[in-house]
């Protein structure tokens, strides 16, 4: 009897848990779903009420979106260019630094490790205004260089790179490279980088998403409209020009998040293991 009660209790609990999970699922998905569905509906349809099924006005909304002078394709090109460059710079220099920390012994190594952790915790509030004034003195405001160059010293990624490399660097391979007469930097490029591809991919996805979604720093630093990135165009979407074109607004917003959803669909395992790896590593 006791055994049966336990079993019965488990079934009831399991049912309640699935109800909870399902409720949270709805809560998570519904804003995104409404966004994508409304992007395919005409303004009239949107005003008539909520629908959870897509409609047929996608092309119409797209033309409407572009007809008001919003240069969406330029925004996309800018955001892509910036995200790709940021990713390459972040991944290369973070792995380079992390490799130096993992493979070599030198005075101050421990200090440097701790220093990286402190840097991760420094909020951008403490630097952004001084950074802006400094960049304007150098004539680098309204220039993507001011968004890309600081990533040479990306403490968070270096920390991830260090955690990752510590688990996979093979010193025998490095020594074999040295016997073959390869330079230290050559060993990093030809032996280490190819082996570190999985870690580099994870690091790269996070760098890409961070750059793609970044609003605050470009908003402060970039002023000419030709250089606006997508998050900055989202802000103009909310302006008066589109006041009543709901379908077009939803489409504009949907287009900024869909690339990320696609990336996530492909790489979700890398992303989730990346979060877990960073958090529990002893």
């Amino acid at each position, binding site marked *: 009897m006791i055994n049966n009660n336990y079993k019965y209790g488990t079934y009831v609990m*399991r049912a309640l*848990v699935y109800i909870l*999970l399902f409720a*949270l*699922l709805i809560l*998570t998905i519904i*804003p995104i779903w*409404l*966004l994508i569905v409304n992007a395919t509906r005409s303004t009239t349809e949107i*005003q008539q*009420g*909520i629908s959870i099924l897509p409609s047929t006005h996608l092309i119409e909304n797209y033309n409407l979106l572009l007809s008001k002078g919003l240069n969406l394709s330029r925004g996309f090109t800018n955001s892509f260019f910036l995200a790709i460059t940021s990713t390459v710079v972040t991944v290369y*220099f973070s792995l380079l630094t992390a490799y*130096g920390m993992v493979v*070599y*012994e*030198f005075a101050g190594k421990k200090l440097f490790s701790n220093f990286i952790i402190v*840097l*991760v*915790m*420094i909020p951008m509030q*403490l*630097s*952004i205004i*001084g*950074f*802006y*004034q400094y960049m*304007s003195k150098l004539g680098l405001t309204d220039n993507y260089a001011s968004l890309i*160059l*600081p990533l*040479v*010293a990306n403490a968070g990624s270096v*920390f991830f790179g260090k955690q990752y490399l510590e688990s996979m660097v093979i010193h025998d391979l490095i020594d074999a490279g040295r016997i073959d007469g390869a330079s230290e930097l050559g060993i990093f490029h030809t032996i280490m980088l190819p082996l570190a591809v999985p870690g580099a991919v994870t*690091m790269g996805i996070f760098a890409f*998403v*961070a750059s793609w*979604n970044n*609003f*605050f720093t470009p908003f402060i630093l970039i002023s000419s409209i030709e250089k606006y990135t*997508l*998050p900055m165009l*989202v*802000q103009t979407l909310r302006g008066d020009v589109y006041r009543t074109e*709901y379908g077009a*607004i939803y489409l504009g*917003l949907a287009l*900024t*998040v869909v690339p*990320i959803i696609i990336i996530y669909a492909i790489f979700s395992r890398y*992303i*989730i293991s*990346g*979060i*877990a790896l*960073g*958090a*529990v*590593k*002893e």
Partner: protein
Amino acid sequence: MNLAKLKRNSTGYLFLAPFIIGFLIFGLYPVINTLTLSFTDATLMSKSSHFVGLANFKRLFADDVFMRAVGNTWLIWILNFIPQIGIALLLSVLFTSARLKIKAVGVWRAIYFLPNLLMPAAVAALFNALFAYYGPVNQFMVRADFLSEAMRFLESIWVTRGLVVFIQWWTWFGQTMIILMAGMTSIPLPLYEAAMVDGASVWQMFTRITLPLLKPILIFIFVTSLVGGMQMFDIPFLLTDGRGSPLSSIQTNNILMYMKFASSKGHIGAASSVGVLIFFMTSICALGIFYFLRDKDMDVTKPAKKSLFKKNTTRSQS
């Protein structure tokens, strides 16, 4: 140590050189510059500026604008953090439960995490559209007779604050859950087996085994969430008019800093003082958390410190 080895080890510095140079130019100097600016009356319009001592800081306390921004930021952060950690703890217990054996944990987890990756600017604009006067939420509420007439949601202080809180919760509970789950699965199973033999209840096992062993990770989540929360900008900025309307109820620290920066003269001295003050406030609280929550034996905080990195690489803002 032979000469070859010595030479090889000094190359360690060469590998670190780009980072160190990049940090000095783009990391350290801007921080020093911000600190310096906070003691001056510098504006973007004037070439020269003067040292004004603590005048910028005194002015922040002269009226209640600054303290209101600080209050708003704390309120929104606390209201989002409590359900965030609560739901995340509950979900991670359920997902790792040997009794319940929930199916497709990976899929649930992946879906709950999705909002974290979406562009905050777009999410804020989306909620602005959804909760507009002629927006879908009003239509639904009126048609289903929950409301007798459409409501101006974004003119209500508590609805607007509630929306910011909800969006923050929605963005972060998945990530918090993933970190907690990783922590829970690393707790050795025999601990629970022994407790079960001793007749411990589920609740006892949770409070006596799981929570104490998760403490470093909980501290980590707490601190990173606090640091991120104090920098909240995109969502409250883009949900309403960019000034924290209605009645400045969602005007956060960073919105205030931006408003000073973007004012007609560009008061970068005053804007810097906001940033500096918030930094010290956040640091003191974060160090306080480390200090009061750490166990008597020091090494317990080490895993937490080491694991500080993740939340900040994925997003500089939370």
